[in-house]
């Protein structure tokens, strides 16, 4: 993310950013994004590594069995190797964050916790304004689909979450998903505060519902933007056609999709689909 300061008209503020780290490429990208935002919002950034209690329990377990991949050879778990792996994973995650922060002239804190990965992350994130994490962990998943922690964070994290992925161009404009509810107004503030190629324009995907027609949504956005000296360009996206949202985001050069985490039309399968198909980071505002 660019180091340019957030515009004065923005109401979205970040003071403390938590980034969940492991040694995956997605986490690396998340660290870059977190440090970029910290610079932009003059916030404190802190890394978090959770030692998976399941792995630790597994290593110590008397009946635990390991089937090696890809050979299929069965055997007992090597506790020493597993512990070494966890330690190395933690060390390289911390080093990666420090390297990125040092490059940008920041000092990043780093916390190591032990427990269930998702619950420990969410507990720690409750102390921060924003949780940044990679789309998937080290083991990865097919077709850029989100990992279990990212999915859980999207659905259950206590605060705002930025789900980052690799291969994202830092240029472009944010795309706001606007459904007219209070959450999306907050998301509008967040979108305005993110870096934009065109400083005077914001792109908005209008998601109509029984409560709000497209026209109403449009007027609402124009009203919200009128006193901030910004224009908006609009695209209409029906809730049942959320894949169009991702296509538009890809074709329009989008650096992040910003949406209200509690938007009723963007819950469950819809949210999962956006997470899987969007070719850019996702900022869920709470």
């Amino acid at each position: 993310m660019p180091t340019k300061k957030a515009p004065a008209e923005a109401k979205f503020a970040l003071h403390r950013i938590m980034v969940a780290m492991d040694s995956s490429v997605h986490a690396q990208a998340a660290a870059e994004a977190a440090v970029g935002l910290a610079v932009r919002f003059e916030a404190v950034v802190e890394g978090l590594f959770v030692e998976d209690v399941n792995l630790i329990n597994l290593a110590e377990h008397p009946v635990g069995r390991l089937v090696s991949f890809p050979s299929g050879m069965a055997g007992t778990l090597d506790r020493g190797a597993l512990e070494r792996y966890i330690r190395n994973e933690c060390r390289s995650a911390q080093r990666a964050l420090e390297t990125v922060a040092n490059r940008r002239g920041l000092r990043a804190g780093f916390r190591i916790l032990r427990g269930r990965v998702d619950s420990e992350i969410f507990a720690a994130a409750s102390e921060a304004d924003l949780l940044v994490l990679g789309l998937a962990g080290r083991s990865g998943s097919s077709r850029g689909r989100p990992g279990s922690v990212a999915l859980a964070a999207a659905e259950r994290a206590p605060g705002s979450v930025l789900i980052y992925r690799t291969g994202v161009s830092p240029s472009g404009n944010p795309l706001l998903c606007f459904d007219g509810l209070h959450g999306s107004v907050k998301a509008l503030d967040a979108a305005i505060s993110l870096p934009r190629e065109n400083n005077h324009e914001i792109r908005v995907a209008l998601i109509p519902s029984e409560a709000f027609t497209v026209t109403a949504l449009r007027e609402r956005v124009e009203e919200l933007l009128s006193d901030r000296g910004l224009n908006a360009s609009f695209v209409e996206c029906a809730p049942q056609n959320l894949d169009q949202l991702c296509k538009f985001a890809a074709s329009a050069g989008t650096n992040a999709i910003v949406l209200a985490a509690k938007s009723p039309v963007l819950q469950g399968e819809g949210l999962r689909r956006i997470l899987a198909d969007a070719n850019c980071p996702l900022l869920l505002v709470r």
Partner: protein
Amino acid sequence: MNQSIKPLASADLYHRCAPEKLGFRTTDELEDISGFIGQQRAVESIEFGTNIRRAGYNVFVFGPPGAGKHTLLRHHLNESAVALPVPVDWCYVNNFSTPHKPRALSLPSGRANGFREDMERLIGDLKAAIPAVFESEEYGARRQALVDEFKEYQESEFNALRERANEKNVALIHTPQGFALAPMEDGQVITREDFDKWTADRQKEVRTRIQGLENQLQETMRKVPLWERDHRKKLRQLDYEMTRYAIGHSMNELRSSYDALTQVLEYFDEVERDLLENYDDFLAAREPASPQMAIAIAVRNQFSGPPSFRRFQVNVIADHAGADRAPVIHEDMPKHATMFGRIEHLAQFGALTTDFNLIKPGALHEANGGFLVVDARKLLTQPFVWEELKRALQSREIRIQGLYEAMGLPSTVSLDPEPIPLDLKVLLVGEPMIYYLLSSLDPEFKTLFKVAADFEYDTSRNDESTELYARLIGRLARQQKLKPLDAPAVARAIEHASRLAADGEKLTLRVGLIDDLLTEADYWAGQSKLSIIGAKEVQKAIDAATRRADRLRERSLEQIRRGDVIIDTEGAIEGQVNALSVVSLGDFSFGKPSRITARVRLGQGKLVDIEREVELGGPLHSKGVLILTGYLGEAYARGFPLALAASLVFEQSYAGVDGDSASSSELYALISAISQVPIKQCFAVTGSVNQRGQVQAVGGVNEKIEGFFDLCRARGLSGDHGVLIPAANVKHLMLRGEIVEAVDRGEFSIYPVETIDQGIEILTGKPAGEPGEGGVFPEGTVNYLVQRQLAEFAILARAAAGDKNDANEESAG
């Protein structure tokens, strides 16, 4: 004295060519001579040899240097080549199945270079087209779909297993080492402490469950390689399909251009197969899309080198674009590599490597379908060239192999290119000696070179040949862009041609020497700022050439004049005669007087040739000396034993002597020594003799006469000086003008002799004498004195033998 032997008149000493009879003013008026003078036999042989298109009818052209062999061949072969079709082109291409055996492809004449350019264009197009297809959205989407499908399938299999495990309260967790199985409760792996609290039965039961799941997990994992293989196959099929699409249009376009050429079409099929199998070479040639790919490419390059498109190149070996006739190649450096081609190597990381692009053609490739002219001596002095040429002509194919392979020695990794069919007429040009040696020593020679083209050394001099020779001189002048010659200059050149032939009734056919003469005469004309070459310039060219070459002649003459070498040219001395020899220095030779002395005593009929005794005399010289014994016995001692011991020597001769041209001189010395009649030293003698006393012709007569004349002139010509030559040599006389003039003034004489008796009378001034009844010579003759002395030797010998017998009887008694 036999008054019938008269010295030769000046007209006999030089066969003049009269300029006024030539019938032109300058050579500009003369038409070019259309053929070659006096070489009809050689021309017919060459015509026959080149026109008969049968195996083994190659031609060996031989004759003297400068006879115009190469000129005649060039002229004739250029005409013959027009009648032959332009041969096909040849090129080497990669053999995709066995790369160390490159394929030879033939194409219609003039199409090989186009074929090479077409292949270059094809690969250039594909370097853009193949990556473009693989970078297209369609390819990316289809490939991603396959990858996702594969990953999803794998995930679904493991997820199904995970769900089954979870149903049985067993966690299936992906760890860096593989998949781990452990009991769980509420979605969490149970700690060791909690597990230990379980009853033994419960622990046993969970172990059994884990064991069952472990087996299922292993079963699933065993399927992974099969899934991956299927996945790779699908990816490969996709790549194959995309590559086929990318190359299809270009390949079809190319095929349509060569649709009648089966060999080429087969080659295109191989190219297409290779492209489909190795399409990734075209992708690797692009900038790597990611650091990982860059590392992978770097690693691959380190071990196997960057992808090379050299295998698609076409190495043109013979191209006849623009030719309207069969090739005629004159190879003036017939080394193994330049004749049969070579395989070059490149040094890479300390090793020598090669491929079909490094095959270089030789003269046989260039001349294939036409004619190859090679100098025989040069060819034979190069190692293995003669053997390889014979092999190629016998097998009728050109096989390229290095010298090491030809020698049967191990060499670096090399190629074994497909042999190219050979249809070639070879014309070897050389000296007669080489032809005769090959004929007698190499049994294969006559089966491969069935036609001999034997060039004449000279031709008869008559009005017709003189006219042709004048036209030849005119043509040479025009060819060499020399100034025209006037008629006296041409006449002088023709006279010199006779001198070069060493025969006044012949003209030399060593045209190269005449060519040199005209070039040098042109130079002297230029020095005198003349626009036409005159007789004076021709003479100056002859004199200057002689002057440049005659340092040794001058030194030899100086040694005689200063008395270092003793030669008498006045007075009369017993047993001593001036003989004449010729010293040859390449194209220049000169005559040199030598003193021969003979000493006689009582003996047993043995003639000692001192030259032979010290191994300075050659076999021909020894033969001449032995003939003398026969003559002495026949002429003087038919009725009694030849009780003579004589020794003969070339005084102050320190080099070898050969030839029998001094045998008459040696006989005169012997006769003088036996008869004790002195020989006039104002004469020199040349000529060989037979057992009947007839004087026979010798070589180098002009040089010999000139050699003695130069000495006598240096000491002052008295009018008595002269040379005795065989009468058979008179027709060979082409003496220098100053000798002719001296003879005219009566200062020098040349006597043609037919018999020894004639020579005796001239040399001694006394009658030789004819044998009477009983073979006895009349008193007062030289022969009488010889016979009497030999008879006395016989009596003395008999007496000596009687004394010895008496002594033996006495001692026995």
